[in-house]
């Protein structure tokens, strides 16, 4: 165990231990539970901050425990891992606050927050995994710890959504397992390295490598909701709003997208992926997903379903950026991992607020809601602009780099996809904004605000903060430690010679 490796365990423990303790806490001990939650979330953020500082200054954090003969359990904090860890940890804190407000007075909160913490532990593990086996362990753990949250409401619809979630993700897990084992039997190692570890096999096992690539991509593609593996995501909308935030922004979908990044860059390496001829089909698949998701979103009246299909579309930007395989596009894809998280979590928080405060679930019921809930709808509007890609919100930065990168790599068609997608984004977001701000409320109007506030503080602040962060990530994209700067730092590692 190298010095400093304890911090990797501490980062995991900061959510794992509170989670396990919370299971045992009686339902009514709200203060204790809340305290534990916040203690865990804040200490995780502090630990992550420390690691960010260390990694930026050239330190390496690695933890290695013997698991199987020749295969270790490896945690490693590199720049790429920290990108995802930071996103998850920061959003976890906000989501926890939001969930405390959202679930106030509802039953089974100990169970909820327990699994919530496990989920975050698993997604941080996914980020920190130093080899494919460790990745697989946490990836499956993520599936299992999310399931109780999806079925949390205990309704028949929730049960079915849970069934469908597991059917998709566990099948994906099995494919990932098959690919991992096959790769291991060929390569004898599963260790992520900056330029991939399978170069040596390309002469003898070209066909196998291609097949393994698709097995692995199918495995992580389920969580990343690549078409046609996306079916579980819209169904999972029956879960409470904080869970949706978790699925779409903090953990699950992101873990899938992050897996694609790991596989393309650190298992195969971008050059080999291009050489094997798998990068272009992946890019095409991502492009199809982008357009398909947007098209489907267009026809959803249920707000959360529309947002879900929007996620299907937006997450594939990451895959697209990665698959284009040029440094600039990579920056666009990776930075979108963060940007999409910030913007989508804002949207889901707002949707939750609408449902919780004025009982609106459908877009057709949203007429005039902007006046009743100006802050909420303000945040929503900002995030929607970001999704469409309007400057100066963060989404613009992602799309700019994606487009630029695609042209640099000679893939001009991507620009068309981006443009089409932006149009579609506008087509399904702008009508919502129009209804909310410019139409009069139907019938008797909305339930009146209590105490002069549009909703509880714990429900209001998280979306406002994440909206502000989305804006900040766009406006201040070039200051140190901004997502964009950090991603460029990563790109310098993944692409030798990129500066």
């Amino acid at each position, binding site marked *: 165990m190298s010095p400093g490796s304890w911090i990797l365990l501490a980062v995991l423990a900061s959510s794992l231990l509170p989670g396990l303790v919370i299971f045992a806490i009686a339902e009514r001990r709200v203060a204790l539970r809340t305290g534990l939650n916040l203690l865990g979330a804040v200490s995780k953020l502090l630990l992550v901050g420390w690691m960010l500082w260390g990694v930026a200054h050239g330190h390496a954090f690695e933890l290695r425990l013997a698991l199987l*003969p020749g295969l270790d359990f490896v945690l490693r904090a590199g720049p790429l891992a920290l990108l995802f860890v930071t996103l998850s940890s920061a959003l976890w804190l906000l989501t926890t606050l939001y969930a405390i407000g959202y679930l106030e007075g509802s039953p089974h909160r100990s169970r909820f927050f327990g699994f919530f913490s496990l989920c975050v532990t698993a997604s941080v593990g996914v980020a920190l995994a130093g080899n494919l086996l460790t990745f697989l362990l946490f990836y499956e753990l993520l599936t299992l710890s999310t399931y*109780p949250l999806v079925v949390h409401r*205990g309704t028949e619809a929730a049960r079915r959504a849970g069934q469908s979630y*597991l059917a998709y993700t566990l099948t994906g897990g099995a494919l990932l397992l098959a690919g991992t084992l*096959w790769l*291991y039997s060929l390569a004898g190692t599963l260790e992520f390295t900056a330029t991939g570890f399978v170069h040596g096999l390309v002469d003898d096992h070209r066909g196998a490598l291609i097949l393994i690539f698709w097995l692995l991509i199918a495995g992580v593609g389920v969580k990343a909701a690549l078409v046609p593996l996306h079916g579980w995501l819209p169904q999972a909308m029956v879960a409470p709003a904080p869970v949706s935030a978790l699925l779409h922004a903090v953990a699950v979908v992101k873990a899938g997208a992050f897996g694609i990044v790991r596989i393309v860059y650190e298992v195969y390496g971008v050059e080999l992926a291009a050489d094997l001829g798998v990068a272009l089909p992946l890019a095409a698949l991502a492009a199809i997903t982008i357009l398909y998701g947007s098209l489907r979103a267009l026809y959803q009246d249920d707000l959360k379903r529309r947002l879900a299909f929007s996620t299907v579309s937006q997450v594939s930007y990451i895959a697209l950026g990665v698959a284009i395989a040029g440094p600039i596009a990579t920056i666009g894809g990776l930075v979108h991992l963060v940007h999409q998280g910030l913007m989508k979590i804002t949207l889901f928080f707002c949707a939750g607020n609408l449902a919780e405060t004025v009982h609106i679930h459908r877009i057709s019921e949203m007429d005039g809601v902007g006046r009743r809930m100006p802050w909420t709808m303000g945040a929503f509007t900002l995030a929607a602009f970001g999704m469409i890609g309007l400057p100066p919100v963060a989404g613009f930065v992602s799309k700019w780099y994606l487009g630029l990168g695609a042209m640099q790599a000679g893939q001009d068609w991507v620009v068309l996809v981006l443009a089409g997608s932006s149009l579609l984004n506008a087509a399904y977001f702008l009508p919502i904004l129009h209804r909310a701000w410019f139409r009069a409320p139907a019938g008797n109007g909305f339930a009146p605000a209590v105490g002069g506030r549009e909703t509880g503080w714990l429900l209001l602040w998280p979306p406002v903060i994440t909206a502000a962060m989305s804006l900040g990530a766009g406006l201040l994209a070039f200051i140190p430690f901004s997502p964009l700067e950090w991603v460029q730092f990563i790109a310098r590692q993944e692409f030798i010679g990129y500066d």
Partner: protein
Amino acid sequence: MSPVLLPDLPWEALLILLPLTGAAAGALWPPAARAIGLLTTAGGLLLLAGLGTAVADAQTLRHAVGGWGAPLGIELRADALSLVFLTATALVGLGVAVYADSYFERSQARGFWPLWLFLLGALNALFLSADLFNLYVTLELMGLAAVALTAFSGGRAALSGAMRYLLATLLGSLVYLLGVALLYHATGTLDFSLLTQRLEAGPAARTALGLMGAGLALKTALFPFHFWLPPAHSSAPAPVSALLSALVVKASFYILVRLWLELFAPLSGLEGAGTGEVLGWLGMAAILWGSWQALRQPRVKLLVAYSTVAQIGYLFLAFPLLTAAGLPDPAAWRAVLWLVLAHALAKAAMFLAAGNLLRFGGHDRIPDLDCVAQRLPLTVAAFALAGISIAGLPPTGGFIGKWLLLEAALLQGRWDLVAVMLLGGLLAAGYVFKVVGHFFTPAAAGHAARPVPAAMEWTALTLAILALLLGLAPAWLLPWLDLAVGPGPAEAVP
């Protein structure tokens, strides 16, 4: 551990004598049966620790019963392989004993303890025996104890299941004995080691091993000989179901493994490939058929019982995996032993959890489980954790076992085995989560609920957690298994 801490005692003999003496004492004086039962079961764990230390020093211990030695006398043998099965027996046995203490009413408990101690003694004796006929006697002792325990609750389903079980187990033992008869007359010995030296290929040896294999496969409930298992395992009282699924089917499997590794494979070399292939196909069929049936069951205990049919299939997937020299592949067998341990712990936990559900709601119909996630959280956690291990999902013992077996199959290019294992894992996840899903939902009709004693919840959970911890400790445990499956495992990496 140093030998200073543990004196040099005849651990093998004590492991056998202690529970059997306890059984006789319990029969003689029923009011003391409970105390004797609990103490004896717990004492077994200590004796096992002693035996483990001794085996760690000497690798293989032999104990000539009566002082005669083979071939005239019977020999006991303790090595890493027997230790794996003995460990599963001791751990599961202790958990089930504590559970049973709360499960049975006082009047029933007096009958239970001697029968359980007979079963425990028979299992220990079986895992320590190196003599083919002695194995027959231990098989019968174990079988009759298991049948008696199955019928114990006395319901119609239990009686019918027990009767079917009795006939199957008697048939299996007798067919095994017929094989023993042939082997004895072919070689003039019943001792495993001597047989290894003396047995020569020929129609008699082949027939004998075929008969023994068939008899044991019947007792292990290998597809298509599994017909007796679901009725018996699903209708027995929960602690008994746990014992039957976790341990009793493993006992006959243990003998099969011994026969295969020590007699059959060395004897026939590559010729054995055909037999191994057949067993592998049956194993695959068991996985698919058992899982599919489990998925269709309307009741928790039946579902868990069919899951056992499927899980037994995994144990047979090592038979077709041979090294280049035509010998059994140590890497595959290591994986199978791992699965034996993981399945014993997880399946026991599942049956105990199912027993809690049954006690709580008075039924175990899956769609009518009523919000038990809220009411019996420990039981639900036990069932889910154990189920995750059964489905081979990380981070559990079941996952490690499946990984090792998949790895062995892949290195030999056996894609059929790989595909069936992956599919079986998915089906297993399907039937486990079919139950788990209903833990959260309210039932259509409310009904009375009986309290479940804490000991029953905690024993189930403890066993499930042990199955989980098994997934975190492979580096520590694998050397033992390597010792059990013979000369160094095939290098995992080419």
